[in-house]
């Protein structure tokens, strides 16, 4: 079963003749363990797509189905619950809480979801260790590099076994190597079963995805996925 399914989804603002179409008739599915990158020029609808996928905005047409539930039919409380349990967000601006340590930041979503603080902290530490961030668990965000902060933000987004991770330009503010480390982390979460959708401008980072979707003027116009097998790399004989 797909984790996320968007069927003929559109998002318009205003009414004719001054209507702006941010997203037009977009259909896509993301399976568990699949990583998708979304690329396109400014204003092509990338961020709108991510907001609709994560229930932060409602579509003006079409359906968004997340973990088997159609978001448009849910009551507000049920919608909040499913988003909290199933969807993690990572943004370009890291926005970790400055007064909390890395581990406290990661444990927060679990506590908000009703877990006892001690168990939540243990789970947060275990996750940070598994992501190679055990050493920074007790540091405040200001004591971390930009790349470490973003990796902690990814940990916070996936803690509790959420099934969908949505990332909007997660490497936009990072240098090349830190950006690469964040992409490797997203790839690793995807390989462990999380469905991941990343909006990015960086072609080298998009290449970590299983599929790269191209948006133009609010529509999906193309898709790149690697051909099977190394024989596709054989261009010509020397």
């Amino acid at each position, binding site marked *: 079963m797909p984790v996320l399914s968007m069927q003929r989804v559109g998002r318009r603002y205003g009414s004719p*003749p*001054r209507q*702006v179409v941010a997203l037009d008739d977009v259909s896509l599915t993301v399976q568990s363990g699949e990583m998708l990158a979304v690329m396109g*020029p*400014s*204003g092509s609808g990338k961020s709108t797509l991510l907001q609709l996928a994560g229930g932060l905005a409602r579509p003006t047409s079409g359906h968004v189905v997340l973990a088997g539930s159609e978001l448009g039919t849910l009551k507000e409380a049920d919608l909040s619950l499913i988003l909290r349990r199933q969807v993690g967000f990572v943004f370009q601006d890291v926005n970790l809480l400055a007064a909390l340590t890395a581990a406290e930041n990661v444990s927060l979503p679990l506590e908000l979801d009703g877990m006892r603080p001690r168990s939540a902290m243990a789970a947060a530490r275990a996750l940070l260790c598994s992501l190679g961030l055990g050493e920074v668990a007790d540091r405040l965000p200001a004591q971390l590099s930009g790349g470490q902060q973003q990796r902690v933000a990814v940990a916070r987004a996936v803690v509790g076994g959420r099934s969908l991770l949505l990332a909007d330009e997660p490497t936009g503010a990072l240098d090349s190597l830190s950006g690469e480390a964040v992409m*490797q982390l997203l*790839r690793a979460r995807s390989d462990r079963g999380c469905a991941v959708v990343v909006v990015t*401008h960086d*072609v*080298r980072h*998009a*290449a*970590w*995805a*299983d599929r*790269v979707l*191209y948006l*133009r003027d609010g529509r999906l*116009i*193309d*898709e*790149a*996925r*690697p*051909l099977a097998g*190394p024989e*596709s*790399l*054989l261009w*010509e*004989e*020397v």
Partner: protein
Amino acid sequence: MSIRYSLLAILDAGPRHGYALKSEFEAATGNIWPLNVGQVYSTLSRLERDGLVLVAEDDDGQKTYRISDAGRQELRQWFGTPVVREVVPRQELAIKLVFAMRARPEQTRDVVQHQLVATMRSLQEFTRLKATAEGDGDLAWLMMLDGLIFQAEAEARWLELCEARLTRARLRPGPDPKDPKTSEAADAVRDAEHDVERAL
């Protein structure tokens, strides 16, 4: 030609049969550039003619190749000399875009987009290989993949810039001030200009 020097470099490690040279070259370059066995033997006979390799034949008629002192000298010189980049390499893609703009300007964006997808596909494949190579710790192969990734990235970024330029050119012809869409059109031009700047 690089194959000539690659064979010398392999022979520098010790004598080999012709077929072993082919296999070793391919393994060292991740099977990305398959070598035609006929080409290996014709290169070897040129190397022999030039005194850069020595050949010994056993009783079964099988030939073993060994690098000569002159061959070692030649190899040292190769490593010590930078590769000359053609001033303007004749690139099929650049030529295709030039003539697409002449023959079918309205379809050039599609030409660019199709190429972008193909280039992204290569980039995805290289990135997968790199993820595996990082685990294997084969530094030479990793550096070669880095090179291929950067080349593909450069092409993709160039194509994105082409697309942004084509979009800007398409949107530019003066918006009508009475048109209610004017402010949107102005936004779109600004977006396209932003994309050009970013791609640069």
